């Protein structure tokens, strides 16, 4: 009888011991206004730099997504769509873009957490007078080997146009933006441009195993859609004297760190890890693993 009483009392007390429900908070997103960050209604000439410092709190769950959208004349252009997992600290990141020729751009910054709670903030950027197109570097001919080619170097530093091979890459790994290889995909041998930071199934490290040990592996974004559909005109490429074409050609909607089917005469817009826009023209591309590619590159200085 007593035992039953004790059990009953204990059960009653335990069931009364409810934990208070925790309040659920959404994330908060804000933009930095200090230094050279772009403010609301800033007037920036075409080709000028737009720079946003995005800061967000997590709310009640880790931040899982940052999406930055440029809205021009009602058209939404997804510039950044990053999956994240930020827990117990703030999101604090900087992204730079180039002002288009649109009179007005609406920028939307969307942050979501694991509870699918979200926050949005917007900024308007207006078109300033004149243009701010910048100077470019031009490398008329860079010959790089495919993965089994020992005649040419394999690694490209886009910022200086310097080429490296396995023998002299040591100490320069952090400068490498482009590597090339050939592999079979969809039944055909594809001359392919890639980057050390690409981690997909056909990564550069698969063909150049030493890349796995590099402490810095730069990513790059190739606009493969423009390449596949031949959207960049060769004549315009040849006559480009500033970064106008480089910036305008890059469409962020279909980008990857891997660009397949880089056959001769393809022109591929790209954006480097540090935000430099450029165009690479394939002057020659073999489809064998000991072949080579000859590239002509124009890139923002």
């Amino acid at each position, binding site marked *: 009888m*007593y035992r039953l*009483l*004790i059990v009953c*009392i*204990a059960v009653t*007390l*335990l069931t*009364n*011991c409810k*934990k*208070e429900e925790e309040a659920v*908070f959404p994330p*908060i997103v*804000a*933009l*930095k*206004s*200090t230094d050279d960050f772009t*403010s*609301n*209604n800033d007037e920036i000439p075409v080709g000028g730099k737009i720079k946003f*410092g995005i*800061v*967000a*709190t997590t*709310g009640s769950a880790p931040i899982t997504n940052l999406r930055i959208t440029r809205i021009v004349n009602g058209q939404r252009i997804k510039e950044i769509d990053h999956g994240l997992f930020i827990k117990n600290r*703030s999101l*604090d990141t900087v992204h730079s873009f180039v002002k288009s020729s649109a009179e007005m751009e609406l920028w939307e910054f969307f942050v979501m957490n694991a509870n699918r709670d979200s926050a949005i903030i917007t900024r308007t950027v207006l078109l300033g007078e004149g243009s701010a197109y910048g100077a470019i570097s031009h490398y008329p001919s860079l010959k790089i080997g495919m993965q089994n080619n020992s005649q040419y170097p394999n690694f490209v530093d886009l910022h200086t146009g310097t080429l490296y091979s396995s023998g002299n890459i040591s100490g320069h790994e952090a400068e490498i933006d482009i590597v090339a290889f050939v592999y079979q995909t969809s039944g055909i041998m594809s001359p392919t441009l890639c980057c050390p930071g690409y981690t997909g199934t056909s990564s550069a490290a698969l063909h150049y195993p030493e890349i796995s040990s590099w402490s810095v592996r730069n990513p790059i974004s190739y606009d493969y859609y423009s390449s596949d559909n031949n959207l960049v005109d060769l004549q315009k490429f040849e006559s480009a004297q500033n970064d106008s074409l480089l910036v305008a050609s890059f469409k962020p909607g279909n980008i990857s760190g891997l660009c397949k089917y880089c056959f001769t005469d393809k022109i591929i817009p790209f954006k480097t890890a540090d935000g430099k826009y450029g165009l690479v023209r394939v002057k020659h591309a073999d489809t064998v693993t000991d072949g080579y590619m000859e590239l002509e590159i124009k890139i923002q200085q």
Partner: protein
Amino acid sequence: MKTNFLKLMLLALVAMFTFASCEKDDNEPSKWIVKIGAQSNTSIGAFYSLSEKKIYNQTDAFNNQAKIDLVCFYEHDEINNRINDMTLSSPGANIRDIFTGETDVMNYTTKNLTTITPTSASSGAGTLPANTQSITVEQFDQIKQGEAIIATYFNSTLTSSNKKAKLLVANDIYAFKTQDGTYGLFKVVAVSEPKNASGWLQFEIKTYKPAV
């Protein structure tokens, strides 16, 4: 008899353990709330050091000038149109005719300037200036000490009307930046009633200092 006593003790023990294990979680960090006096308040000082989290009276503040970041005062002068009422400012804000004597802030040799910008429309802030990132009370309450987002609410493009927060009432929220580069937000929790030079101001602070 002895068995009954043992059973009773056992019952009491079970109840005690059950209650003891039923404690409320204590994960909420304590709030940083300051109660500061206006210039004639004889029990609460009008000077505050953020680095020390300490209130100073006028004499002690004078002897610790380099540590003082915030000053509270009340001013309602209709003749000279200085209607500030309960105000939070700093030694570097050129506060005249409020404090008196040799230890007046005007006599400081080190005058820390804390710039203060509004984050929500109020009677003191008026309409919000351009480039102001506004914040709600709910958002303020969510933000944790030391979060980088705190700095984003400070309007660095504001070059005038940025040295004091006036006509303060409960739930006003302002952003600030101290002389040493610490960013902060403060939310007014309460203001003495009546509001006068002997009154006080209570506010909650959240700060963020960027890594150098």
